[in-house]
């Protein structure tokens, strides 16, 4: 089996194959719920659509399929890897929202519809080759996410989170569009390779400087980098836990993909030919990365709410991934993408555990987790793995991906050696931060394993949660001991993006 199935089915729309299925499913969702009144049926259709879309995407990825749709959507190795990541996030979220006690009952069809629409938006950004498509994709994700957060309608915390999210999101949109308009003015086109070509023949101008600053700020809000991070903890705490998981692992990556698409392509093209402010922008990203990981980890120490703690740890992880933007080498991009993958399973898994426990009536405070190892051994064991993976304990996935990512800031060839880069201080700060993060992860582990709870009554977690958590456990271990499974694709993807 190869990608010829996809091309014969879709013809010239083949590069959009993974998205078309999900778009149709997204539109069908409310109708399915209206017709059947069964939550199971809706989830079944959603999961089937995501699985089919994933099947097509994996065929295209393994086959090395490349193609474009009228020049604005390009499917290459980079798009394939990122689409796979977004599909995994969507699959996990769709599975667990069935049995989560926090998701809406009355509007379950609309909930799934928004979930799939947001996933389609993410995929649009991954394949986009034009500023317009990047912008529309990011907005599709954002607007769907506002509604997803607000769907927990009776909860004042969710309402407050949604208001904050929509205002900060709107501000970020406005900043981004202003930056894009300046970029369009400087280069006279919206096609990314053409922008890169146009920039390589001109000098740095004040208009381009404004474009850079507003775009960094705009996408900084999307990825929750300090100082644009204030919304993230509130939104992750207020939203239903499956939605928090979707935002923290999927929606945040969209900002990174947009940053990679715009900045790396432009800078690789521009730095080879003309005198340009590449170095300065790399320093800006390096400083943002250092502050983001430090603040995220330090503030997480004082949190008592687990969702809020995970949100701050998510901010710190965004800081790690920003190392890619500072180093801007092919190896850094590949390892950054690999870290995004492992982050889905580690952070996603941790959010799933929290969601599963909320569904059976356990609170979200760390003290509520006392004695969990006796009450739900598998869940406690899974949480232990996820938290240790996030802290970077070998041989789990987080250790491997952090090793790749941090080594890329030391040698330009990463683990393969090579010339030492000037970003070694950034790697030092990142390693120091990993040590800090171990402190607050251990607090949860201590509560679960060592401290005694009030009861030892066994907990029965809903089946879809157990299944989703099991998937995460398998991949957290598998990617730790066999990283080539994804890393090889990431390396292809990085060379594809650097080759534009």
């Amino acid at each position, binding site marked *: 089996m190869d990608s010829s199935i996809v091309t014969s089915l879709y013809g010239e729309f083949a590069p959009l194959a993974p998205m078309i299925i999900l778009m149709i499913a997204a539109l069908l969702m409310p109708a399915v719920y209206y017709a059947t009144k069964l939550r199971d049926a809706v989830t079944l259709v959603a999961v089937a659509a995501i699985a089919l879309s994933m099947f097509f995407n994996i065929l295209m990825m393994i086959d090395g399929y490349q193609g474009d749709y009228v020049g604005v959507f390009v499917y290459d190795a980079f798009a394939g890897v990122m689409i796979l990541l977004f599909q995994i996030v969507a699959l996990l979220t769709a599975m667990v929202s069935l049995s989560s006690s926090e998701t809406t009952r009355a509007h379950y069809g609309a909930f799934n519809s928004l979930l799939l629409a947001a996933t389609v938006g993410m995929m649009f950004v991954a394949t986009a080759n034009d500023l317009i498509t990047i912008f529309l994709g990011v907005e599709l994700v954002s607007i769907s996410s506002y509604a997803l957060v607000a769907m927990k309608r009776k909860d004042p915390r969710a*309402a*407050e989170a*949604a208001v904050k999210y929509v*205002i900060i999101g709107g501000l970020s949109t*406005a900043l981004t569009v202003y930056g894009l308009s300046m970029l369009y003015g400087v280069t006279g086109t919206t096609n990314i390779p053409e922008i890169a070509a146009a920039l390589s023949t001109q000098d740095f101008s004040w208009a381009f400087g404004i474009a850079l600053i507003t775009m960094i700020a705009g996408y900084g809000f999307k990825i929750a980098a300090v100082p644009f991070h204030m919304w993230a903890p509130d939104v992750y705490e207020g939203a239903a836990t499956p939605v928090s998981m979707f935002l923290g692992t999927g929606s945040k990556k969209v900002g990174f993909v947009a940053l990679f698409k715009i900045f790396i392509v432009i800078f690789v093209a521009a730095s080879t030919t003309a005198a340009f402010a590449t170095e300065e922008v790399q320093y800006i990203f390096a400083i943002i990365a250092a502050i983001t990981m430090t603040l995220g980890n330090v503030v997480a120490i004082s949190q008592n709410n687990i969702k809020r703690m995970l949100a701050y740890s998510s901010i710190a992880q965004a800081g790690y991934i920003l190392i890619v933007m500072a180093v801007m080498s092919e190896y850094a991009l590949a390892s950054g993408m690999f870290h995004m993958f492992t982050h889905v399973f580690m952070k996603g898994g941790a959010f799933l555990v929290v969601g599963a426990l909320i569904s059976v009536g356990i609170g979200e405070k760390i003290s509520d987790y006392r004695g969990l190892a006796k009450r739900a051994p598998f869940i406690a064991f899974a949480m232990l793995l996820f938290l240790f993976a996030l802290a970077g304990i070998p041989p789990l996935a987080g250790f491997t991906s952090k090793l790749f990512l941090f080594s890329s800031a030391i040698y330009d060839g990463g683990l393969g050696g090579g010339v030492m880069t000037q970003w070694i201080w950034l790697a030092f700060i990142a390693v120091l931060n990993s040590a800090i993060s171990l402190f607050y992860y251990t607090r949860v582990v201590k509560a679960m394993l060592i401290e005694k709870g009030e009861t030892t009554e066994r907990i029965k977690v809903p089946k879809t949660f157990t299944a989703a958590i099991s998937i995460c456990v398998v991949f957290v271990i598998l990617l730790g001991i066999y990283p080539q499974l994804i890393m090889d694709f990431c390396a292809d993807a990085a060379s594809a993006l650097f080759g534009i």
Partner: protein
Amino acid sequence: MIPIEVYLVFAAVLFAIGAYGVMVKSNTIVVLMCIELMLNAANINFIVFSAFTTDVLGQVFVIMTISVAAAEVAVGIAILLNAYKLKNTTEADSLTSMRW
């Protein structure tokens, strides 16, 4: 003919007014209106660049931005309505149940 800088400065001033409003206004509906101002500043930029380079893509972008902004405001107002039902106010200062 009016030089391009005049339009750009006009758009930049509009953008600055919007950004100022977002930072100082406490009524969330006014904040949403200020965000619209910022978006329109970007739209003016697009149209001016498009007119001066005779490239239509900028105008296409403006149509996309306007429709996205409409969708965003529709969702935003619905969210504000829901918050108003639960809290009886749309002041940003009342949204303080979660901090740090």
